[in-house]
């Protein structure tokens, strides 16, 4: 299982966000460059339509491949009350011919994109990952060198944490409390619930940039 929230930020404030994250996490950022291919089952395959994502990590000297399957979100009154989405997600690293396998099995490429940005991985009540990335589309099939932003000037921020059915409520609490620290710069909510950019972002960014992110918690 994983807990996830998303938000957006204007590219001009990303540097301030990075300073804030650096201060909060105490670790260095990692560069992120991921080619993501969304595959869907062909019309006749499977009792229900299914979808997998192949993630190719282009930051590695030899690109590595991971297949990721995201299941349905947790439902019920309890799930609605919390501000974090809890869903099943399973990943498996694969050899570089993974795409050929899924094509052979009857999966079709639905769309592909390139995420470029950075990530922080750290422990704060849970193992949390924050990614800040611009989403790019390819003008030609698989041409990651010729990608252009889908939403110029806007970047996606995603906070995820691994959880299990036993500890997810603690993980949700850890993620929620972490998100509060980011609130002056951006608002984070369940994926699909768009909340836009926050009006205080410019002022918060200016403040962060002026004091060099020395704020400690």
């Amino acid at each position, binding site marked *: 299982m994983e807990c996830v929230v998303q938000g957006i930020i204007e590219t001009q404030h990303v540097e301030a966000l990075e300073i804030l994250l650096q201060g909060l996490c105490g670790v260095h950022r990692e560069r992120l460059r991921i080619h993501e291919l969304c595959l869907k*089952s*062909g*019309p*006749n*395959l*499977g*009792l*229900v339509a*299914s979808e*997998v994502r192949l993630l190719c990590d282009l930051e590695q000297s030899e690109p590595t491949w991971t*297949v990721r*399957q995201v*299941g349905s979100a947790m439902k019920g009154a309890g799930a609605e009350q919390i501000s974090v989405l809890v869903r*099943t997600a*399973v*990943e*498996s*690293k*694969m*050899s570089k*011919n*993974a795409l*050929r*396998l899924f094509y*052979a*099995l*009857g*999966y079709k490429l639905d769309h592909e994109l390139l995420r470029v940005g950075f990530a922080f991985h750290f422990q704060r009540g849970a193992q949390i990952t924050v990614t800040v990335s611009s989403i790019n589309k390819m003008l030609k099939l698989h041409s990651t060198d010729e990608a252009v932003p889908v939403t110029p000037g806007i970047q996606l921020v995603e906070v995820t944490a691994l959880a299990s059915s036993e500890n997810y409520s603690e993980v949700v609490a850890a993620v929620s409390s972490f998100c509060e620290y980011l609130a002056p710069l951006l608002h984070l909510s369940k994926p699909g619930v768009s909340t836009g950019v926050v009006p205080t972002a410019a002022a918060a960014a200016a403040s962060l940039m002026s004091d060099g992110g020395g704020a400690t918690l």
Partner: protein
Amino acid sequence: MPIKWVLHWQPNPGTTVNTQILTEVSQCAEGINGVKEGRWKATLSFYKPMVREQANASEFPRDFLGISLQEQPNKYYFVIRGQRLIVEAESTIQTIMEKLQSYKTRVALNFEGFQYQLGDFQLRVGKVVPIHSENLRGIVMEMEYLPISSWEKSHQIMGEFFDIWREALSKRSLPGHFVHIEPNFAEYGLLDEYSSQHTAAQYASIMAQMIATAQSQSAQAARN
């Protein structure tokens, strides 16, 4: 990693495998001073597509296998032999396959038995049985040579060891023999340096061979 040959028992025409043969083969391994070391196991699953209209099943691969090997407990191998495709994944891929509900296991077979050490060689002799059954479907043998990891360089010594093994086994006058089929690894994109993907390719090959033998025998039985 050390190279290995995966071999299967080819019964003489008109005969089938039985546990007596397996016992004798195991005794033969001990007879040439093999030291029994412990159990080993591999599992192979045939997948079939879950299709909405049966008529269209032909557009999906019919020879889609999943293999788990004791030598790589955290990995899982997919083989589509017809397309010469081998994919290595972490074993969590099995959970993903279940969740996708696009393919399901048609038959799953266990390859299990004992391991014997003979100097630099390791022999693993085992039975092929469906999961949840003791119905013997075949006999399989892994022949591993620890010092060498190059397929090409190991060929001579493996051939010589196999000759010794065959000679030792021939004294027992069993109704069949072990067969070594060498898949064309290059077609699968595999190099000379041995890996578990080579093992998976060999399992896929012997499986195809065992199925072909069983089918020709049942066709023959039908004619008689």
